C-alpha cells in the first residue's frame, strides 16, 4: 500500500539545515493499522506530511498504492490526495460555519461526483460515525469527540485507500478519546489501512503495528504488547 525507501526531507534556513527525515524506510500493507510514536521534533509530523503528499521530499522514493510519487505535478498529487488518502487532524479542522453535511461534502466536490452520489456517500459516512441524524448541525454545536468523528466521516466519505491520523485524540478527554479510538479500530477491522501518529503508548499498544521515530529515522519496529493480552476491542459507538 505504502512504500517509502530512503526518504530524506531537509529544511533549510539561512544558517542551518535540519534533517527532518533521513533515509526513512517504511512499508505498510493493506489493512494494517500502524501507530507512529516518537518525541516532539522527531520527524513524525514530517513523515505524515510526506506520506499524505502535503509536503515534498528531497531524496528517496515513495510509492502509494502502486503509484510512484516522484515527478508528479500538483494536479496529479491533488487527485491522489483526493482519491487515496483520508486525513484526520488533531484539531479536527472543520470549517466552523459549514454544517456537518457540507463539511463532509468538501472532498467529494473535488471528485466530481454528481449530487445523488455525494449525498449517498455523505449519509453513509455520517452513518458510520453515528452522526447521521445531525447532518444539519454546525460543528460548534457538537462536543469535541463528535467533531472528530465528523472529521473521520469526512476522511471516509471519499472511500480512501489509507487514513492518515495526526494525534486524533490529542484534544479530547479520555472518554471521548476512547470512543474515537474504537471507531478507528472498527474501520480497521472493516478493511481500512490506517497510519496514526500518537503520543499515547496505550493507544499505540492497542494497534497492530508500532514504529518509533527518533531524529528522522525509524528506530524501533517492536509491537507493544496488547493490554491484558487481549487484542480484541469491543466497539461501542
Amino acid at each position, binding site marked *: 500500500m505504502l512504500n517509502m525507501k530512503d526518504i530524506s526531507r531537509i529544511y533549510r534556513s539561512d544558517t542551518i539545515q535540519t534533517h527532518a527525515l533521513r533515509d526513512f524506510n517504511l512499508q505498510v500493507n493493506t489493512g494494517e493499522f500502524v501507530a507512529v510514536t516518537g518525541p516532539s521534533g522527531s520527524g513524525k*509530523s*514530517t513523515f505524515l*506530511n510526506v506520506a*499524505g503528499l*502535503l*509536503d515534498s521530499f528531497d531524496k528517496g522514493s515513495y510509492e502509494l498504492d502502486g503509484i510512484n510519487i516522484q515527478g508528479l505535478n*500538483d*494536479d496529479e498529487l*491533488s*487527485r491522489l*490526495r*483526493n*482519491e487515496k488518502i483520508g*486525513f484526520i*487532524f488533531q484539531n479536527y*479542522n472543520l*470549517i466552523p*460555519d459549514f454544517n456537518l453535511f457540507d463539511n463532509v461534502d*468538501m*472532498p467529494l*466536490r*473535488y*471528485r466530481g461526483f*454528481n*449530487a445523488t452520489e455525494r449525498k449517498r456517500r455523505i449519509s453513509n459516512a455520517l452513518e458510520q460515525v453515528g452522526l447521521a441524524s445531525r447532518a444539519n448541525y454546525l460543528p460548534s454545536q457538537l462536543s469535541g469527540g463528535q467533531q472528530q468523528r465528523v472529521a473521520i466521516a*469526512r476522511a471516509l466519505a*471519499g472511500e480512501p485507500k489509507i487514513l492518515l491520523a495526526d494525534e486524533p485524540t490529542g484534544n479530547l478527554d479520555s472518554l471521548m478519546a476512547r470512543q474515537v479510538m474504537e471507531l478507528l479500530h472498527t474501520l480497521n477491522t472493516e478493511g481500512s489501512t490506517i497510519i496514526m501518529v500518537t503520543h499515547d503508548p496505550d493507544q499505540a499498544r492497542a494497534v497492530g503495528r508500532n514504529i518509533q521515530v527518533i531524529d528522522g529515522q525509524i528506530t524501533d519496529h517492536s509491537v507493544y504488547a496488547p493490554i491484558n493480552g487481549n487484542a480484541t476491542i469491543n466497539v461501542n459507538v
Partner: protein
Amino acid sequence: MEMFNYYLKLSMRNLVRNRLFFILMISTLAVGVGVFLANIAIIKSMSTDPIPQKSERIFNVTLNIWTGNDASGDLIEIMRYDDAMHILKNDIATHTMVHYQSQVYARELGSKSLTRQKAVVRATTPGFFPLTDAPFAFGSSWQQDHAKQIVIGDTLNQKIFGGGNNVGKTLEIDGKPFEIVGILKPWKLKPLFYHVAYGQKFNPTDDIFAPIETALDNEWAINVRNSATDRINSVSDNRGKNGYFIQAFVQLDTLAQKKEMQQYINNYSQQRLQQGENLRDYDNRLLDVNQWLVHKEVVDERMLAFGIATSLFLAVCIFNASSLLLARFHSSRFETGLRRAVGARMKDVFYQGLVESLLIGICCAIFALLFGWMFLQISINLFPALEHTSDIDGALILIGVIIALTTSFISMLYPLIRSCRTSLSTTLK
C-alpha cells in the same frame, strides 16, 4: 457548472460572513470605478464619432484666404459668401453644403396663440441633408435657392404642432410666411460636427433648416462668429463683401475626389492671391470629421485633467482593495490549506478565487453604476458646460461592468496567487 455553483455558494457565504470587510472593500472599489466611469462617460461622449458610417468621407473645407493686411495666424473655418458660392459650384464632391447659424422666433401662421418659439436656424443648401444623413420623417428639402420654404426639426414640430405630419403648413417669422416642406425625425448628433466652434459643439440639432439665400434675403442675423474687413450694413450686404461667416463641408467618397477637391480649393486661393488678397502661412485644409473634431479640441481639456486624477484615484482604490484582499486571504489560508489537503488542485483554489472575484466584481459593478450616475450628476452640476454632453447608454453600462470586473480581478490577482502558493503542511497545524 456544478463546481461554479458550489464556488458561488462558498463566495456568497464568505461575503455574508465578512460583511463589514466586504462592504468597505467593495464600496471603496465601487467609488473608484464610479468616479472613473463618470469621467469616461463625459470624455466618451465628447469624443464620439457623430457620424461613424461616413465620418472619414465628410470633410470640413477651410480656405487659405484673408483680406486683412496681416496674414499671420491660423486659418479660420469661416468664409465669405462668394467663397462659399465658389465651393458650392464644384462638381467634384458627392455632396456639398455651406451654412451659417441664425436664430428666429416662429409661430404657426394664423394660430390663435401669439407666443413665438425660439428656433435655431441652419441657413444652408440642399446638400446639407444627404451629407449629414439627416433623417426625414415627412417631405423633403426645398428645391429653389430663394424659396420661402423651410425644413423643421422634430423638437420644433413638437413645440409648435405637437408632432405629426405638418408638411404644407406655414410658419410666421418676423411677420413673413414660410412654408414647411420637410420635417425631420428626432435627430441626435453629438458632437454637432458641422458646427463645433464657438460653444456650439454639444448643442442639439437645429430647429429650422432654411435656404441660405432666403435667410440672407430676410436679414436673419449671423448668430455665431462673424468677422469682417469691410463695413457691412446688413446681413444681405455680405454678398460680394469681405464678411466671413459661412462654413463649408463636402462629402468625398474616393481618394481621387479628395485630391481633385484639394486642387480645386488650391486653385481658388491662387486666384484670390492674384486678385490682390493675402495668403496665410498654411495650406488649404480638408479635414475629415474626426480630424476636424480633434483640430477643434472638442474634448474639454479640463475633463482630461480630471481624467488623469480619476485614473490615479482608481489605482488607489485598486491598491486598497488588493491589500484588503491580501489580508483576507491570509486569514482564510487555513480553509484553503484544508481544501488542498482533501484534494483541491491549485487550479480549483484559483477557480474558486476567480468566482469570488466575479461575485465581488458584480456587486462592485452595481454600486459603481450607481455611484457613476451620482458623480455624473455632480459633475454636471459643478460643470454646466457638460449638460448636453453625456448620457449613460448601454455601451457605457457595459464598459462600467467590464471595468468593475477587471478591477476586482486585478485586485484579487496577487492575493490569490499568494494564497495558492501557501505551503500546505504548515497551514493545517
